[in-house]
């Protein structure tokens, strides 16, 4: 092989190597481009989810603030007015007319009951009060109110060793339970309402069930009726705290909602 043909081979080899390198570069570019695009899609999904969560959080905060205001109004204004009415009734001089006297006594009882009921309602709406009591006691309190109403039997069970969650999560769980109770009272036509909290070491399971007429869950995916809206709210709330929300219902046999909340022992989830 003379020097000239050696140089020609060198040219050909170098030229081809450069072209193959460029083709490799283009393939690498396509790979990188697709990887970045996939990353960008994931990022926008994350942002969307974060935005949705923030929006939901804000909605819940506004709702809590409204409930707190209503609770204060009930306590400070209506409660105060009823207390004054009761005081007036108490300070009334005994009347001769026995029938009238009985009416006054009945009115005193009714006003007393109204004051008690309003106090209970005010407590269950008050965010601070619920957070101070904790989830378990707040649910007990709520069930006591249902028992007092006397329309259905309310059973509450606790399984496992109780622990406290962080206040925000407890409040959201409590609001879900309230919504569930509300649905049962308004729509289920039930005789028994049952709530069970099970404390697993790494999960909190909360179950609310009834023996009512049940509900057809299929339309929930299609239209947002008021009832569906309530269920969606419960679902959204559960999502907000990273809980799993399940709902099962059988017509004429009752409905059950179950919430599984993972508990991270190394974070501030747990408040003993």
């Amino acid at each position, binding site marked *: 092989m003379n020097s*000239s043909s050696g*140089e*020609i081979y060198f*040219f050909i080899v*170098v*030229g081809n190597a*450069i*072209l193959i390198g*460029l*083709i490799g570069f*283009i393939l690498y*570019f*396509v790979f*990188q*481009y*697709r990887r*970045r*695009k996939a990353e*960008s899609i994931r990022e926008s999904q994350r942002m969307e989810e974060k935005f949705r969560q923030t929006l939901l959080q804000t909605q819940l905060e506004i709702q809590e603030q409204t409930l707190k205001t209503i609770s204060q109004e009930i306590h400070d204004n209506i409660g105060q007015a009823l207390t004054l009415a009761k005081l007036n009734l108490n300070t009334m001089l005994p009347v001769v007319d026995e029938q009238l006297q009985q009416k006054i006594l009945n009115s005193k009882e009714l006003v007393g009951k109204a004051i008690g009921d309003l106090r209970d309602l005010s407590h269950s709406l008050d965010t601070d009060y619920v957070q101070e009591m904790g989830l378990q006691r707040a649910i007990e309190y709520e069930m006591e109110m249902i028992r007092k109403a006397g329309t259905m039997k309310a059973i509450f069970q606790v399984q496992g060793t109780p622990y406290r969650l962080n206040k925000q999560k407890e409040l959201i769980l409590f609001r879900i339970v309230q919504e569930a109770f509300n649905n049962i009272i308004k729509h289920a036509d039930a005789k028994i309402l049952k709530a069970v909290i099970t404390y697993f070491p790494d999960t909190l399971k909360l179950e609310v069930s009834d023996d009512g007429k049940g509900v057809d869950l299929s339309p929930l995916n299609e239209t947002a009726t008021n009832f569906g809206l309530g269920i969606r709210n419960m679902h959204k709330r559960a999502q907000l705290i990273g809980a799993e929300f399940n709902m099962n219902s059988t017509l004429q046999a009752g409905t059950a909602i179950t919430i599984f909340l993972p508990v991270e022992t190394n974070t501030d989830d747990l408040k003993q």
Partner: protein
Amino acid sequence: MTIRFLLYLILLVYLFVLGLIRFRKLTLPFQILTVLIGCTLVSEIISRILINIFKNSSPVYHVFNIVNFTGYALIYYFLLQSRLSRKIILLLIAGAVCFSVFNTVFLQSLWSFPSNFLLILCFLNIYCSLLLFRQMLHDNEDIDILRQSVFWFNCAVLLFYTAIFLNWSFYNYLVRNKLNTRTISTIMYYLNIAYYIIVGVSIHINNRKAVPVKR
């Protein structure tokens, strides 16, 4: 007229007609590309006529290379979004025109092939295509990369001008050593054909509505 030259001309005519038919649907850079293909077609025909009359077609390339460079520079001017890159391209156009005149007057006369300018043109096109690849990596479009006309056009430019640059270097070496250059000329023809086929793909899939281009 050889079959491969005829094939090359037919391809240019097809692309030019395709570009004209889709002209309103094309984005501005691809409209410029269509005009440039028209200019290439005209230059190739004039070049053939000059070869038949004077046995030398170099004068055409002294003019056409400026048009070619300006065309590509404008295409990249509209494709690139960085202000700095755009300014550089405008300066390059002015510089290249000055150099071309200088080259024709002092370095390579009208009757010799303007290879100096062609090599610079190759370098600048490769540089612009790399800039565009960089920009594409940063600005992800919704459309799949293989459906983007800009991607195909840019690949064609990068590969074609690199190959042309290497070929011309090799060609000069062969001429200097008085060796046969026929194979290289044949390769250049096929490179041109391959290049215009890929450019054709890009013109075919380019759509004003699908590809947002800053103007």
